[in-house]
């Protein structure tokens, strides 16, 4: 069973629809016990970093997600959900994140249009379970990006600067784009995450 963390964020239902379509058993939940027991946890997110962290705190889920990571359960953060996995963010002041991947979330340089909105072409940086992404376009909507060690970057795109599109730290994964909105390519990546979980 996959848990999709329910903390009142925009795109959770579309993510659920994609998993349902792929027949991946999943539940939208903010129940700590369920999240701790699930085979994988997906952390979605749309909106602002600080508000999202506050919402996770309110539901007492920050420690829960850290426990899930320590246990070795695969976690996948999507879009803002990926950004929350890092140590901190600059979005409207300095805010502390979940600290599951070393790095910091900073603004996209303003010599390009912000937000980055649309399909960008990925380059695989490292061999991984998500190797199918190399050369493929996925759908992005974001104004901030993760600045992190190269060893944690599996794929990236160019937009004003190099922007990590898939990141990894052991059992913790993040996708900056929306796989649930990236057509067949995105559905395949969600399938590949399922394979990671089952392996």
């Amino acid at each position, binding site marked *: 069973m996959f848990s999709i963390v329910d903390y009142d964020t925009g795109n959770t239902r579309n993510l659920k629809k994609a998993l349902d379509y792929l027949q991946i058993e999943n539940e939208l939940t903010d129940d700590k016990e369920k999240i701790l027991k699930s085979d994988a946890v997906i952390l979605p997110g749309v909106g602002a970093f600080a508000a999202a962290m506050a919402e996770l705190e309110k539901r007492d889920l920050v420690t829960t997600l850290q426990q899930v990571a320590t246990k070795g359960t695969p976690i996948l953060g999507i879009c803002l959900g990926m950004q929350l996995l890092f140590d901190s963010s600059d979005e409207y002041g300095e805010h502390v994140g979940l600290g599951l991947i070393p790095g910091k979330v900073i603004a996209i340089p303003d010599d390009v249009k912000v937000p980055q909105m649309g399909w960008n*072409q990925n380059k695989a940086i490292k061999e991984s379970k998500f190797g199918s992404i190399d050369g493929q376009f996925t759908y992005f909507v974001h104004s901030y990006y993760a600045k992190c060690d190269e060893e944690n970057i599996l794929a990236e795109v160019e937009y004003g600067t190099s922007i990590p599109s898939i990141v990894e730290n052991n059992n913790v994964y993040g996708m900056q784009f929306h796989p649930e909105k990236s057509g067949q390519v995105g559905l395949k990546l969600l399938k590949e995450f399922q394979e990671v979980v089952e392996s």
Partner: protein
Amino acid sequence: MLAKRIIPCLDVDSGRVKKGVNFNNLTDVGDPVEIAAEYQRQGADELVFLDITATNEHRKTMTQVVEQVSSQVFMPLTIGGGVSSVQDIQALLKAGADKVAINSAAVDNPDLITAGAEKFGNQCIVVAIDVSKNKSGEYIVYIHGGKTATKLNAIDWAKTAVEHGAGELLITSMDRDGTKDGFDISLYQEISQVVNVPIIASGGAGRALDFSEVFKQGNVDGALAASVFHYGELTIEEVKQAVKKEGITIR
């Protein structure tokens, strides 16, 4: 590189797609899900659904359409038509829309843009602007489906809309709409100089070359068309190949 977007637009009335959608491989040419899936198959980068008879009753039907389409079609969906409150925006986003387009209501009350952007993020608030040139050559904003002229200058209004929190602009040239004479390049040049958010051009698409022209010269991020795609005069694949040939990044 971020790809330029090719966006088909679908008019929806009472939960059915109107305006002669004419794909010969569909069993039901009015079914939004089937049509959306066909456009996805052809390689559309995003879909815009416009509720053309947006009464309260129809709006409920529209949310059902969005619900159904987003369960089967996994690409960005923008929904517009009659959106006039934060509740309307919320209902559409909840049903599965990724972005909501506001037109007349934003002109009447620009604070609606701000309220939507603050609550849901500016990335999902699109301000749609219908534009026509007046006798002295000034671009003027029209509302109520192009029926009512305002006193607003379109370039100024685009700027104001972005200042209020619009994350994207969908700009339709009413003068070019339906003419197939190509997009109004100078309109997009003027607007792209004053805002730093993505711009979608609409109105006038006739040939595949019209798309590469508006990308190259108009500095827009997406180009929208309805009839050329609906009637099968152009396929999305054809347009994309032609645009790619011109050296423009396309998915």
